[in-house]
């Protein structure tokens, strides 16, 4: 089966892989809305959605567990979004109004292309990433494509032809540009460190994880969050702002902008915006984990390779690329879910910022911090490189 797959033409394999990834990503993003509701509920001391159950299924004994977990809510939400009447207001620019949610989905789903989810050893014993496209410009691609998402927000705000969505769109653009700067500057030290002079230069996200996969107490076994804590912090704050999550959800702050840029949207179009936001969150957390938290490696100093090595002592099939890939993807997804949980946890902890505060934090706090961070690490790395010589 394995051989059969690898004998398929490349384009077909890519199409299949891409479809598979989207088929996983999209439901996860949709399930996030469920998780959001459940976690909010738990944090607020209430059970959350626990009523929905299809009438026929309700007869099956034991189904009550799924009902109380609210799992059917997902289907109910999906059904509602799909079948509910979706009026287009008369005063909007119809073409752009409809195009905006579709445009929102494109960058959200396409950034995943350069994100590696796991890795396996091939016959030659070389670590191979499980990734749609292992580009050398991986991180740049993520930044470049994901920031296109702001076009959808601006377009939605503008095409709605009403004040609040317009303000939401304007806020979104200002906010995203402001935080994009700090975000990009914050990861530069990491790549300066990786691309030490004399070595092979790369921006690939796979390479970053590979360099965090040392075992034991080796130099390269430490996750970068310990080497670059300030970078990780700035990246995380900027990520919150980039994904429009609380406390930075200026573009849609319902207390002052009704619903912000998606005020005029309903049903499926609205849910596309929502799914896009969660996709951004997933990809953003994935990048954060790859850069700073060791990607698919279970623990600092305990890389995936060692775990597989240890497991294959018990069962030889554990060393099979497929098994290793699945374990790697499992660990990676686990970390992504933990980080999404963190997003939701923060949402119920911090109050929303005021818009001027968002701008102050972005330009007067984070940006100087990121620049200082960059300068200090540049000097440090230069000194280290000098000492090594």
């Amino acid at each position, binding site marked *: 089966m394995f051989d059969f797959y690898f004998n398929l033409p490349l384009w077909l394999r890519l199409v299949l892989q891409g479809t598979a990834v989207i088929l996983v990503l999209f439901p996860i993003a949709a399930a996030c809305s469920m998780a959001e509701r459940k*976690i909010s*509920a*738990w*944090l*607020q*001391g*209430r*059970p959350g959605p626990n009523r929905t159950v299809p009438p026929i299924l309700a007869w099956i004994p034991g189904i009550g567990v799924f009902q109380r977990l609210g799992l059917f809510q997902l289907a109910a939400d999906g059904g509602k979004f799909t079948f509910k009447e979706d009026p287009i207001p008369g005063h909007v620019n119809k073409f752009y109004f409809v195009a905006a949610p579709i445009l929102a989905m494109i960058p959200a789903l396409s950034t995943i292309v350069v994100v590696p989810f796991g890795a396996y050893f091939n016959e030659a014993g070389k670590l191979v990433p499980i990734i749609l496209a292992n580009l050398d410009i991986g991180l740049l691609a993520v930044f470049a494509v994901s920031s296109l998402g702001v076009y959808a927000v601006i377009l939605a705000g503008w095409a709605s032809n009403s004040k609040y969505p317009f303000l939401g769109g304007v806020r979104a653009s200002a906010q995203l540009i402001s935080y994009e700067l700090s975000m990009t500057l914050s990861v530069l030290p990491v790549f300066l460190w990786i691309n030490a002079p004399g070595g092979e230069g790369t921006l690939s996200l796979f390479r970053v994880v590979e360099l965090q996969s040392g075992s034991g107490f080796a130099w390269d076994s430490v996750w970068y969050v310990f080497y670059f804590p300030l970078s990780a912090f700035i990246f995380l704050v900027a990520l919150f702002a980039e994904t429009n999550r609380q406390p930075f959800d200026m573009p849609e702050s319902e207390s002052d902008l009704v619903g912000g840029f998606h005020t005029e949207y309903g049903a499926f179009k609205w849910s596309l915006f929502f799914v896009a936001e969660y996709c951004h969150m997933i990809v953003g957390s994935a990048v954060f984990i790859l850069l700073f938290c060791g990607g698919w490696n279970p623990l600092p100093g305990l890389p995936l390779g060692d775990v597989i090595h240890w497991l294959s002592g018990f069962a030889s099939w554990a060393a099979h690329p497929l098994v290793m890939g699945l374990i790697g993807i499992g660990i990676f997804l686990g970390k992504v879910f933990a980080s999404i949980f963190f997003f939701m*946890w*923060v949402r*119920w*902890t*911090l109050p929303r910022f005021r818009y001027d505060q968002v701008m102050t934090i972005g330009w007067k706090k984070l940006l100087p911090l990121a620049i200082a961070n960059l300068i200090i690490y540049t000097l440090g790395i230069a000194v280290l490189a000098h000492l090594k010589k």
Partner: protein
Amino acid sequence: MAVIQVERKPLSFAERTYIPQILGGLKTTFKHLLKPTVTLQYPEQRPEIPKNYRGVPTLVKDPNGREKCVSCQLCEFVCPPKAIRITPGEIPEDSINAHVEKAPQAFDIDMLRCIYCGLCQEVCPEEAIWLQNQFSMSGYTRAEMVNNKAKLYELGGTLPDDHFKWDKKKSAEEHGNAH
């Protein structure tokens, strides 16, 4: 009055980064994650209704099973949103309650209008109408939201009563000292 000037302490560096505070907040919210839920699961669990709660107005009977209402229509007149409609009716001669003379033939309270003010209960000379602890009125149509006489008695039931005013009146009449 002595005025005390409170010195506003400048924030320390750690406080100005907000990070310790945010971590503290995260800790607090995480504790709530593990706490049991405090929500009432409404249709299964019912809230504790305090005594004297003013819920849906209902009609009550006395312990002998007699309708207390004498259709004086005071409640109808006093009702601010005009939710009550009463059609007065005679009590037939052969009834054991014939001495009361009047009872409502129809008694409708439109719950879409009622504002639960309790004036009807205040004004009723017979203590026949009570706002009881019934609090969930819902229906699919407007017609369903109008409580007719049968429904009102069903909701109201019987309340303890030690006056038995009409019975006393009847026995007084029978013993020859009416009024």
